[in-house]
């Protein structure tokens, strides 16, 4: 029967999804660049990086049930890998990034050396977070540390990472981070035209990440992940290693955060510990919670919407933003745990029901329970 269905071509929903994807691609790639000023486009590019992180969190948390409160760590690893290359490329003949000079270092630390090579840096920006997350995940999940313990541990890790970065100023740039990055593979970051190129790079990366994530969630592995979220022990009795299932999701999310970090650096021109600590890491979860933790599109929308709100609200009332963020968060998590996505899905179900296109019954809300 399923094969018969396949012969009939895509279902209504699949069709709609493709249209949705095409329209959003059109919006991001054509409409936004045409109508937004350079400044706003730059902001949007930054938000798209954040959306990439959010997609990873939606996988690990929304679908895998692992509340990752240390995504800043992986974002930072990716960002620093990229920034190290860019700083070295800029240092040119001196061979030493500016901050090392004024911190009194005379030689390049060994671990910086490989980052002279562009492709090593680009690869490392994704692979280093993935490897780190895989190792860490294996250690944590193997001893069946989960739920709040896992959340607090990842949080502590992010904090430790920041302390480490700040404490090793001579080789990491300390609190300042790595700043004053002005070129990116021959692009002049001061040039608005080149900034646009970065915007397109971010938009396309987000599209690719979204497609990868969708493939992942629609695959058997994705079902397995949900199964682990809802009944980890039962999955073991199907013959799967729950540890491995979780590690894959955790590492994927880490890799996405790393990629986002690598893109963020040229777009914003700085990476610093201030963006990797506990508070930014929790904020990343906020985006996803607001958008709808289990939905990829929700996570993307959440990341863009929350950051847009933050940017514009903090322009209007600097201190009001914190009240707003706190209140938004309480409201969403306590009263609408499935976020915007949940609300939209609910509304859609009601409409479809009323127009008779769909039989009433438990549907989308099925994923609402059992997640926390």
């Amino acid at each position, binding site marked *: 029967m399923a094969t018969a269905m396949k012969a009939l071509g895509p279902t209504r*929903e699949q069709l*709609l*999804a*493709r*249209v*949705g*994807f095409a329209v*959003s691609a059109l*919006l*991001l790639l054509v409409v936004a660049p045409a*109508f937004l*000023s*350079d*400044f706003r486009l*730059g*902001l*949007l590019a*930054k938000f798209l990086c954040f959306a990439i992180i959010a997609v990873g969190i939606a996988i690990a948390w929304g679908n895998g049930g692992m509340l990752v409160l240390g995504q800043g760590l992986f974002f930072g690893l990716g960002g620093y890998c990229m920034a190290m290359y860019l700083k070295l490329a800029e240092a040119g003949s001196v061979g030493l990034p500016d*901050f090392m000079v*004024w911190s*009194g270092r005379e030689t390049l630390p060994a671990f910086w050396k490989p980052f002279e090579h562009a492709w090593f840096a680009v690869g490392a920006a994704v692979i280093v977070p993935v490897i780190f997350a895989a190792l860490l995940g294996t250690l944590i999940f193997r001893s069946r540390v989960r739920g709040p313990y896992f959340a607090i541990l990842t949080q502590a890790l992010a904090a430790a990472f920041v302390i480490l970065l*700040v*404490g090793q*100023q*001579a080789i990491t740039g*300390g*609190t*300042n*981070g790595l*700043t*004053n990055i*002005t070129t990116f593979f021959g692009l002049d*970051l*001061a040039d*608005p035209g080149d900034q646009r190129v970065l915007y397109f790079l971010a938009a396309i990366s987000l599209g690719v990440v979204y497609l990868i994530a969708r493939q992942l969630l*629609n695959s058997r592995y994705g079902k397995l992940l949900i199964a682990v979220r809802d009944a980890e022990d039962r999955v073991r009795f199907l013959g799967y290693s729950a540890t491995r299932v979780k590690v894959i999701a955790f590492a994927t999310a880490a890799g996405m955060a790393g990629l986002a970090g690598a893109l963020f650096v040229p777009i*914003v*021109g*700085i990476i*610093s510990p*201030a*963006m990797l600590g506990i508070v930014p890491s929790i904020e990343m979860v906020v985006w996803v919670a607001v958008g709808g933790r*289990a*939905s990829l*599109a*929700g996570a993307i929308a959440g990341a863009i*919407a929350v950051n847009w709100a933050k*940017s*514009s609200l*903090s*322009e209007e009332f*600097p*201190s009001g933003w*914190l009240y707003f963020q706190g209140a938004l968060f309480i409201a969403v998590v306590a009263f609408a745990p499935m976020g915007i*996505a949940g609300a*939209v*899905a609910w509304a*859609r179900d009601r409409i479809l029901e009323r127009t008779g296109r769909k039989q009433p019954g438990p*549907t*989308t809300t099925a994923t609402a329970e059992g997640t926390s």
Partner: protein
Amino acid sequence: MSTREKGGRFWLLAILALCLSAFVAVGCGSDSKDEASSTSASASSDSGDTIKVGILHSLSGTMAISEVSVRDSELLAIEEINKNGGVLGKQIEPVIEDGASDWPTFAEKAQKLISQDQVAATFGGWTSASRKAMLPVFEKNKALLYYPVQYEGLESSPYIFYTGATTNQQIIPALEYLQKEKGVKKLFLVGSDYVFPRTANKEIKAWAKANGMEVTGEEYAPLGSTEFSTIVNKVKASNSDAVFNTLNGDSNVAFFKQLDGAGLPSDKLPVVSVSIAEDEVRGIGADKVKGQIVAWNYYQTTPGAENEKFVKAYKAKYGKNRVTDDPIEAGYVGVKLWAAAVEKAGSTDPEKVKAASKGLTLDAPEGKVTVNGENQHITKTSRIGVINENGLIDTVWESDGPIEPDPYLKTYDWAKGLS
């Protein structure tokens, strides 16, 4: 196909439409000038009735503690100028943004002020990290930043005016004071773990080596730390004559208390601090730092008619309990310097303002200051002070006139190789 995915796809559309409308609303609706995406900030800024300037400090987050007061003094300066007819016959209109103690936010907001609000100049920043984050933004947009805080030196951006002290105007005089007036031979360095203390200590070590002073230890505490037992033990074990303290605001309380508890009050072991000004003393409590030595260029008690006027105006505007201090004054001076340069140039164009600033002098609350055209720092008088029981600082030593700024310490032999 699970229903969840159907959902996700269905409303991808809706969300993106929402986002787009949001951006359209903010991007186009709120500011029509936005479309004239210009990289030269001031091109159109003096064509209106007012001249916009940006004020970019942390109004939230950990740094708000210090930066809010500076914003206040900058607003005071703008108000005074406006009362006297403004600049070029136009009123100055401040656009205030919040850096939120987050360095990339400083960069973002700086860009916003420049391209969205098209401000003629921006006054802002406190931490070195925020300055470093903003620096490329101002350089690439060829826009002006006035930075009001003493810092570690080794920098001289063509688009930044530094109205706080560089090291040779604050730290080196303090060291000389310790050696000559206090006879210090062994010095212990304590700082918060960030750029200013680390870089400053590097310079101190170079100076000490050249001047026969021994550095007996160097310790850093994480920002905001209140745990100094171990560091104090190390200080005690080192038998030092004095401590050079570059700790950040809130950590100082804990540090001084621990010193006190370990039997090392200020009369036994002098501590020179370069990050505690009157505003910080207010938060620390005068009783806890009474008698401690500080090094700055300006105190609320600094004599002179200009300062009397400034302190009076500041207190009148913000309340009797408020105090003025070095960065607050430097923020005020920055605005005044910019206004004077604009008047002199007859334009707000950054290049013209830069040219006009060269050698510009001003009677500031701290005394006469002159802009160094080369490195865009200003001359400053160095003053060593002692905190009194009212939380104010009494000057105990002062340099012979203003010191020329030398951010790269080029004129000092011992500093070769530092930069």
